[in-house]
């Protein structure tokens, strides 16, 4: 059974600081996704990571994937208030024909 664990679950940051969210998964995966969700809203796709060593960056967010360690990170650089949201990682289980398994989410609050 595929399990996806995120930590931390809650993160309070000051503006301008850096931090990393971690996503561990338990079995071989085809793809790893990062999503952002604002309160009461749907999911916004941030990154799709397809292979070992993949690194993608968009603005102040950078995601990486280490398939050997079964670990993905979402790094936040110089946080701003607009980044406050819940961030989910999700994993495609290999051979599952595409059923996403989600982590519990990391609720990020960026304070002035």
């Amino acid at each position, binding site marked *: 059974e595929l399990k996806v664990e995120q930590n931390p679950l809650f993160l309070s940051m000051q503006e301008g600081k850096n931090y990393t969210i971690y996503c561990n998964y338990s079995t071989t995966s085809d793809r790893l996704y990062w999503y952002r969700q604002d*309160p*009461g809203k*749907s999911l916004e796709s941030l990154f*799709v990571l397809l292979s070992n060593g993949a690194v993608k960056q968009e603005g102040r967010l950078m995601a990486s994937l280490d398939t050997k360690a079964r670990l993905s990170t979402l790094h936040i650089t110089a946080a701003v208030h607009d980044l406050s949201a819940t961030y*989910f990682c999700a994993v495609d289980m290999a051979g599952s*024909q*595409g*059923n*996403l398994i989600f982590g*519990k989410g990391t609720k990020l609050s960026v304070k002035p």
Partner: protein
Amino acid sequence: EADIYQTPRYLVIGTGKKITLECSQTMGHDKMYWYQQDPGMELHLIHYSYGVNSTEKGDLSSESTVSRIRTEHFPLTLESARPSHTSQYLCASRGYYGYTFGSGTRLTVV
């Protein structure tokens, strides 16, 4: 511009009523999914479909049912709504480049 549409966006309904949550996509994707999410919590897969006339139950037990008569349409039905069904329901479809999520239906059963 959304390529996957969910209606209604919000729904408040009385206990015992039958409801259908609509989900349609214009991308021609074969794979579609329904997720249930309580506020601020993780998403749980409740139903999925790999194509027309294909439906399967997901990891989370649900009293809802789904149908897939047309590729673009994947409605979810609750025969008799209960307060425990209060939640947000997200529909998604999967293409080559990944998943697209609808805007969700926030259901409240009173």
